């Protein structure tokens, strides 16, 4: 009997939301927006300057061209070699004016000794182009100089290599520290938990202000209604994130290679694939979201039930927003040094766990027992919050008028 009730509420909540225009727009728009953010600028930059990327290199030194050409090609230039002669410059100026080449660069003694060169062009190349050109020339000159002395220039220029051997057992995480994954993931968790928990609050408030709740409550227990709402919104969030996940996977497995095939210059995007989290991290991420959502949505449902107007709810949710903002403030130091006592302590506080524990795991590695403990603590918190929030909800959902004070709230919890 009870489950039929709850199922009806879940179904209603889910279908109403999934069918709404906003859901469709936000679900589709978010990934498109992300793709656009990464791909479009590169795509446009690449395709709009075909002629400009054509560059002639006059190598008066006779030793730099091979190295430089490879480097420039990788940076998006198309390079052609022109032998040094007294008429070379005049000839190249003419070709530039005809639009055959975007410009030409002349390498001489100063290039060898100081990495300086002159780039002749009709239009001023953008800063990115200047930078790739400049660093390519400097690298080529440096590599040449180093190799003359018998140094492994390639390795040096890559930035060498530092291997880390951990002496303690603290960092048992298998994944390498990846700052972007840790930080972006933490922020994403913050956003989705907040958005969906607030959705629960709004739904509760709407039922209350429209008075439909009186009819509903006369047919079912308040606690079932609250459970149904939360599960319904959870379903919506899974659907939305599922769409995002699938489109993300499709994008990286199918979209990226075909993009690279069509646009070889976008090759630098492949680095992005290295940044994406693996399956293990994704599972943990979903785990943190689920528990975070159930903890916060319970609290938000209680807030929605105790308020009578949107304005009141805005004020009353302030402490909850704070609970979400605090871990965001701490997430940077926690990612950087994930195993300090402070990081450990904060990340084990259940309401901070989703964001901070995620930051620690993605940022470096956390002993497995701490991850397990944090999930146990979150599960316990979900139950405790459900108990308290359910009681506040039960009394509050039918109340009108002034928002209760803290002592009154406590009485609701005790007496419900």
């Amino acid at each position, binding site marked *: *009997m009870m489950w*039929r*009730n709850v199922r*009806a*509420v879940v179904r*209603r909540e889910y279908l*109403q939301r999934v069918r*709404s225009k906003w859901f469709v727009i936000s679900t589709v728009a978010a990934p498109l927006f992300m793709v656009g953010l990464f791909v479009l600028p590169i795509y446009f930059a690449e395709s709009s300057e075909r002629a400009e990327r054509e560059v002639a290199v006059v190598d008066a030194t006779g030793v730099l061209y091979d190295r430089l050409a490879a480097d420039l090609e990788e940076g998006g230039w198309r390079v052609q070699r022109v032998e040094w002669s007294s008429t070379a410059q005049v000839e190249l100026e003419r070709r530039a004016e005809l639009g055959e080449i975007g410009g030409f660069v002349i390498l001489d003694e100063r290039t060898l000794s100081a990495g300086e060169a002159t780039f002749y062009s009709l239009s001023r190349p953008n800063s990115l182009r200047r930078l790739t050109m400049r660093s390519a020339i400097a690298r080529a000159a440096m590599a040449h100089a180093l190799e003359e002395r018998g140094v492994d220039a390639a390795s040096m220029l890559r930035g060498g290599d530092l291997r880390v051997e951990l002496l303690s057992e603290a960092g048992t995480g298998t994944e390498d520290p990846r700052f972007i994954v840790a930080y972006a993931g933490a922020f994403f968790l913050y956003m989705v938990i907040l958005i969906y928990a607030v959705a629960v609050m709004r739904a509760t408030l709407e*039922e209350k202000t*429209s*008075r*439909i*709740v*009186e*009819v*509903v*409550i*006369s*047919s*079912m227990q308040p606690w079932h209604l609250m459970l149904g709402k939360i599960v319904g919104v959870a379903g919506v969030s899974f659907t939305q994130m599922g769409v995002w996940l699938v489109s993300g996977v499709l994008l990286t497995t199918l979209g990226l290679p075909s993009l690279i095939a069509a646009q070889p210059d976008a090759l630098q995007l492949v680095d992005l694939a290295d940044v994406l989290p693996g399956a293990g991290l994704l599972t943990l991420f979903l785990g943190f979201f689920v528990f975070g959502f159930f903890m916060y949505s319970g609290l938000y449902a209680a807030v929605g039930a105790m308020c009578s107007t949107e304005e009141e709810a805005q004020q009353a949710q302030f402490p909850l927003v704070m609970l979400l903002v605090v871990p965001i403030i701490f997430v940077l130091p926690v990612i950087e040094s994930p195993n300090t006592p402070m990081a450990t302590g904060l990340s084990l506080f259940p309401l901070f766990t989703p964001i901070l524990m995620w930051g620690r795991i993605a940022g470096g590695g956390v002993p497995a027992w701490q991850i397990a403990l944090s999930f146990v603590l979150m599960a316990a918190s979900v139950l405790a919050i459900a108990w308290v929030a359910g009681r506040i909800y039960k009394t509050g959902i*039918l109340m009108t008028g002034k928002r209760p004070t803290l002592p009154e709230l406590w009485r609701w919890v005790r007496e419900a």
Partner: protein
Amino acid sequence: MHPDGPAVRLRGVSKRFGKRIAVSDLDLEVPRGVVCGLLGPNGSGKTTTIRMIMGILHPDEGSVSLFGGDPDLVRRARVGYLPEERGVYRKMKCLDLIIFLGEIRGVSRAEARRRGGDGLDRLGLAGWADRKVEDLSKGMQQKVQFIATVIHGPELLILDEPFSGLDPLNQDVLEEIVLDFRARGTTILFSTHLMDQAERLCERVCLISNARKVLDADLAELKASERKGVIALEFSGPDHWIGGPEVARVERADGGLHLILTEGGDHQAILRRGVEAGAEILRFDLVEPRLHEIFVRHAGADAAGDAGAPLATSGRREGQPAPVSGGAR
């Protein structure tokens, strides 16, 4: 549970909100198969009483039972409730809303869809099943809500001010439906401040004023027992003989006058005086008092002032000007 207990029974029920007493020591019994009106002016405690029956509020004292048993066990499946503040999910389609409200009361989706469709057809909303509730007028929304209220075939209908907000035409439609349910043996308890309506529909009335019950009786018996009190009078000629120690008040009604007698007043004395005064008596009739008059007699004119407000034709007292200027006094 007693299978033959009354549909509704309140025993010594009280409810306070802070210092304000909303309902005080109320006993109420609605036998099965009866239409009972809960009457009283605004703020007299009707809605609070109904909410306690529906388990939305819990009485501070006293007990509620439905069909002789625990109300929480029977309410969902056997009671249909239309609250005074009629909430809807505005973004839902009409039929979906009805199905949802049926589903949470244990009706299967298919069955709820069928019954909901029938209900919409019957109330002239056939083309609106797939429209959003917010597209409907208030009166239409109210019809949808009524359909949802009875979707699970309840044995007891509890309607809080079901007629408010409806135009006269739709009031008639709803009245017909209520009578239809009565004919099928459904017990109905509804609150109203419209005495006319109550008079037409109810077999039993419960009058509440200032949180207290003033009257709770079978309407026909009540009228019979109060019959002596009112004389319908039509005459021509002098009128000085009308006033006398037997007459408490005079009201205009039905194109003539209603004389409301004092307790134990002798109507024969008035008739004699009239004949002696030379008036031509066209009608001298002991009438059933109107519910409004009974209410005034029991609760006082102040209480009835609110409750009787819409009854301008029969309710205004003789010699008193229209309410507008009367209020300025």
